């Protein structure tokens, strides 16, 4: 090696503080040894054969300039068990579920659908303030819920009510929450569809997107110590996955080895924003690879595939204390919410494919029909009974008054502070004189929410 090369190398390396002048050799033979030593690794291994940098393990050298191109890698394939027509694609993948369970899965999907219709219409009629339907995504709720235990904790986004219904949350509770009446377990504090239920291990929904994701990871960390074998499932949409909290969650889950299933409902739209404006990479599943977690992409309208994937994900998560990412490809058939009208940004032709051909309820129905698990008679009876039940719950919900106005100041802290108490007294006094301006007869009596 030339002297000028050694001089250049020495100055470069001393500028970046790697090397003291003592280590620099004068002869050519020692020079390559010095160059090797100066980039030696934390392991102390010479890295002529294999890189040994602090920042990466187990990789190889490349002596050809080439960019790793996402496009050339191709997309992660979509796992499915049933065809669009309900035909079993691979006998070996059929889950061993009893007829009873499959029928329950079907009934739960239909229940979501029917409840959605009633509550959506009730908002249009001005009886509740807001609603979000789950049309087209019923299998993502029920397939995943069916694969888990009741003690597995659920952190959801807002379009996962089927998970609650599967677990036994009643229509009455859901409708009470939508009304925000005095029977609402959430005490009328939030908008409709912001369900929560400790008995069903379903953490209360919050409106902010993706905030539940790092929380799900923290909860999973706690479960490692408190309840090994239990996992957290965290639902989110492909739009929410753009938030910083999603990145935070994926990174924490992998580095801290948390038993959490990240379940992404990729339904094609975030309100009006199609996926092509949401991301340019290979969906959400490909990101999981970058963080170092196992991933699978699934046909979100194939309830049996969802079931299989979730069940396997839980087994993997528990066995190795790792997060698993499931990206369920589906389609949001309905409007984003009652504040949205999808005719403004997509065609009826596009939507009709997902209502008439590739629909989760329809596909399971075909599967069940083939095996004589269901028929049109059962369907008729079931829907009739369901509608009656939902309407009864709805009517009952309407009879309840709104919560005690003074409860507006409750639960800010675990124990009421002096300042809150003062505000409450002030509000009470105001309402005692000006109560007639507030339609107080629609509310439970003032102070009735205080525990004695």
């Amino acid at each position, binding site marked *: 090696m030339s002297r000028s090369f050694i001089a250049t190398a020495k100055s470069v390396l001393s500028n970046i503080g790697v090397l003291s002048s003592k280590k620099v050799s004068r002869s050519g033979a020692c020079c390559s040894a010095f160059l090797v030593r100066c980039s030696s690794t934390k392991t102390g291994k010479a890295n002529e054969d294999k890189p040994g940098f602090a920042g990466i393990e187990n990789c190889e050298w490349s002596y050809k300039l080439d960019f790793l191109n996402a496009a050339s890698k191709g997309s992660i394939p979509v796992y499915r068990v049933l065809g669009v027509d309900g035909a079993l694609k691979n006998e070996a993948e059929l889950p061993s579920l009893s007829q009873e369970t499959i029928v329950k899965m079907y009934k739960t999907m239909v229940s979501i659908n029917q409840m959605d219709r009633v509550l959506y219409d009730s908002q249009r009629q001005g009886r509740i303030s807001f609603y979000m339907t789950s049309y087209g995504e019923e299998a993502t709720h029920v397939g995943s819920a069916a694969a888990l235990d009741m003690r597995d904790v659920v952190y959801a986004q807002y379009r996962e009510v089927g998970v609650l219904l599967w677990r036994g949350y009643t229509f009455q509770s859901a409708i009470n929450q939508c009304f925000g009446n005095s029977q609402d377990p959430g005490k009328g504090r939030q908008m409709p569809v912001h369900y929560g239920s400790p008995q069903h291990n379903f953490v209360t929904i919050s409106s902010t997107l993706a905030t539940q*994701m*790092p929380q799900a990871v*923290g909860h999973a960390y706690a479960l490692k110590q408190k309840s090994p074998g239990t996992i957290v499932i965290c639902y989110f949409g492909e739009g929410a996955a753009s938030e910083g909290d999603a990145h935070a969650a994926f*990174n924490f889950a992998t580095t801290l080895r948390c038993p959490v299933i990240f379940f992404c409902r990729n339904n094609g739209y975030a309100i009006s924003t199609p996926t092509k404006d949401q991301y340019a990479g290979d969906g959400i599943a490909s990101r999981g690879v970058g963080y170092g977690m196992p991933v699978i992409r699934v046909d979100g309208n194939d309830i049996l595939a969802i079931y299989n994937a979730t069940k396997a994900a839980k087994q993997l998560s528990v066995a190795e204390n790792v997060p698993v990412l499931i990206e369920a490809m589906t389609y949001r058939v309905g409007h984003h919410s009652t504040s949205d009208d999808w005719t403004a940004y997509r065609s009826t032709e596009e939507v009709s494919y997902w209502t008439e051909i590739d629909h989760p309820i329809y596909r399971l129905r075909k599967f069940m029909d083939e095996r004589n698990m269901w028929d049109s008679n059962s369907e008729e009876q079931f829907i009739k009974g369901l509608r009656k039940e939902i309407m009864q719950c709805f009517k009952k919900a309407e009879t309840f008054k709104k919560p005690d106005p003074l409860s507006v100041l409750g639960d800010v802290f*675990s124990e009421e502070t002096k300042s809150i108490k003062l505000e409450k007294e002030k509000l009470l006094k105001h309402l005692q004189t000006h109560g007639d301006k507030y339609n107080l007869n629609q509310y439970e009596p003032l102070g009735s929410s205080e525990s004695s």
Partner: protein
Amino acid sequence: MNMFQAIVNALDITLGKDPSAIVFGEDVAFGGVFRCTMGLREKYGEQRVFNTPICEQGIAGFGIGAAVGGCKAVAEIQFADYIYPAFDQLVNEAAKYRYRSGDLFNCGGLTIRSPCSAVGHVIPRGAYQAKGLLRACINTPDPCLFFEPKVLYRSAEDHVPIEDYELPLGKADIVRPGKDMTLIGWGTQVHVLLDVAEEVFSKNGTECEVIDLQSIIPWDLETVCESVCKTGRVIVSHEAQLTSGFGAEVAAAIQSNCFLNLEAPIERVCGLDTPFPHVLEPFYMPTKWKLIEAVEKLLAF
């Protein structure tokens, strides 16, 4: 003990008493950039004392979830200036968890500690307060923000009891009683106020009552009003910017509750309405001299 030693001690007691307690944040494993977690990982293991990636929103969100899951989660935000990415998780999530769920869920087990200048929710002025207030924050069933004035980590030394103790949250401390004027502050600024009180006392016998608020939310309106009704003159002082600093809230509450007892307008001596400067910091700060000037102005009213 000095303040950072008191904090290590408080965390040691926490980890020792509660098997569900975890301590985490950036660089906490080796002992922390301010030494506040020294020796804890060696003593309690890597499952309970651990590093996180550099992501404040993740630290806050993770902490909330761990608390919901039943842990005493003590999160560190390395510098209070870095807390803003966690704003959404703290303001929209942690603070509202119990309320918005109708008390079905809460993250009371969460405590966030952060070295700061002198702004915060619970903020100790010394080592003795640091240990007691931190233990109280950790034990209270509400999420807490505990700010540690880093300038006091080494300089604030106290006789700190070895055993476990708590100081009440939401309670102010009358550090120096007096009848002529009330001086209210928190954290580092309390020491400046004490200095001012001593100076004006030796100069002309003015007795200033110095109050350390200690907790910002909830804060001790009662103690403050009792003092102001006695003295009739009050200065609120903090390092944070003047406009919409917490001093504004204190001043508004005082005038509403003590109007007829006031002998002079309420004065605030605070940081300038600018970002925190570097070389020109001495001119930004609510200095002893600015305070003495304010004391004299109020006495002359």
